[in-house]
């Protein structure tokens, strides 16, 4: 059973389709990045998963359960929205104590102390949250979201409004939660660099549809397969004729002195080089090529905009 399952999900508001046949799954303990431009339907998906909005068609499950119909199931899920869910007039500890009461946290005082220390707010525990900076509120919001040790936590733009130091702290915290507490993290973020660093799997949502859903590793290697770029000493004319018919080469392209090959077998690079040298080509450099998540994201979003 997956931690999160979305199958054939569609939803429209006032006649406008927001989500169209969206399907993906998130495995237990994964850090999943949900990407998409503003208005793509990311927050709508999260709201449907959390039972705040009803799906139009399709089915959603979190830990195998429907959170809309199952009050108890929500005790296993944490959530951080943009507003942090905190009262400005209550203290940091008071806010956490309130949610500890709602979620039935055992030994709340100890857990609150532990979390305030974790997010570096122990010395501000009794101060009203209204006196906190944006970054401090965000950190406290994360502490609130994981207070009850949820199995799945939904984080909506957790680094938004944070300075680079606080962003790094949030990143490290997410990785630690996933590793130490085996928490599944559903991360809704615009920080593509952040997603590439910490997420194991991503889905790109654009125009209401899932445009890509794969591991970060597969997405960032061309077409999900390893590719190499060989810089030749001199023009690369004829190189594709030499290697293009090799069984492990699926795509070949020459651009000046650069030969780009996509391989079916990631261990075939030495054989490719041997074939080129055997055909008389002189080689200056060989490197594995990969694309950044940002490039892939922009490509998919651009394609969706063209379709629209």
């Amino acid at each position, binding site marked *: 059973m997956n931690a999160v399952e979305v199958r054939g999900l569609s939803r429209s508001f006032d006649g406008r389709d927001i989500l169209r046949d969206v399907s993906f799954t998130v495995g237990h303990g994964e850090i999943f990045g949900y990407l998409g431009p503003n208005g793509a339907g990311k927050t709508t998906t999260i709201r449907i998963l959390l039972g*705040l*909005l009803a799906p139009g068609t399709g089915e959603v499950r979190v830990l195998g359960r429907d959170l*809309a119909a199952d009050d*108890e199931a*929500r005790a296993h899920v944490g959530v951080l929205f943009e507003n942090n*869910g905190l009262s400005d007039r209550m203290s940091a500890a008071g806010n956490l104590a*309130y949610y500890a009461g709602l979620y039935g946290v055992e030994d709340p005082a100890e857990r609150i102390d532990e979390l305030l220390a974790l997010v570096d707010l122990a010395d501000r525990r009794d101060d009203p949250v209204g006196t906190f900076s944006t970054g401090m509120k965000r950190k406290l919001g994360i502490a609130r979201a994981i207070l009850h040790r949820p199995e799945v936590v939904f984080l909506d733009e957790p680094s938004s409004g944070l300075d680079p130091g606080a962003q790094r702290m949030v990143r490290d915290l997410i990785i630690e939660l996933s590793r130490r507490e085996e928490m599944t993290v559903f991360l809704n973020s615009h920080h593509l660099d952040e997603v590439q660093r910490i997420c194991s799997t991503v889905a790109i949502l654009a125009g209401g549809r899932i445009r890509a859903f794969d591991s970060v590793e597969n997405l960032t290697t061309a077409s999900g397969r390893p590719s190499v770029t060989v810089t030749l000493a001199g023009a690369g004319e004829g190189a594709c004729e030499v290697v293009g018919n090799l069984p492990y080469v699926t795509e070949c392209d020459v651009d000046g002195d650069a030969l780009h090959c996509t391989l079916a077998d990631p261990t075939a690079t030495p054989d490719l080089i041997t074939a080129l040298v055997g055909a008389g080509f002189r080689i200056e450099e060989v490197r594995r090529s990969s694309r950044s998540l940002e490039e892939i994201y922009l490509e998919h979003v651009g394609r969706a905009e063209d379709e629209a």
Partner: protein
Amino acid sequence: MNTFRVIAGREMRLALRNRSVLISALIFAVWFPVMSALSIAVGAEGDAAAVAGGIAGITLPVGVFMGYIFCADAFLREKRDGTIETLLCAPVSLRRLWEGKAIGVTVPAYVMMLLSAAVSVAAITALTGVSIAAEPLLILHFVAVVPVWIAASAGLIGAAQLALGMRENQILGFVFIFGFIFLIVVLQGVAPGGGGLSVTTEGIFAAAGLALLALARFIAGKVTKERIVRTIP
């Protein structure tokens, strides 16, 4: 710990920390009975029962208005700030959330109403010299009738604030207040003996209060999470 107590307790603590709401409530709790004292004293002409009836008559709208003042903090603020969305994800039913908040509003509103009643009694006693402190029907009115009306108004206004958008809420707040006050005036008009304090009048008000409470509960049951989330500004 019982989630109902957790929610209600938090709303009461927040009400005590909201200075602007407390000051508004205190001003109204003192100003309204002082302004009404003179007309009650003149109209009653030294009759203790008539004085008690006058005090009972003003404490209901005061209690309802107090409920409205505290609702703005408990329901509308959470919606305006968006924190209600996080609360809706907690393992608590929407009905339990509404009940906890409504009671969390009712308690401070009731305390303010008692303060207002004490000011009324003191002001009228000072003006007329009539002692009304131990009037049994008036005590019954404070203990049984007024809290039900405050709870009903807080529940209805709270449910409406959860279900409606911000613009509708601005209009609806006044509609509710005037609606409640109109209902009180109508009930005082139809009750035998007018607005005077009697077992029948208290029975009519208690029954109407319970009916309003049941209506509030029914309406709150119709509010959905989707409706709340889609009307967050």
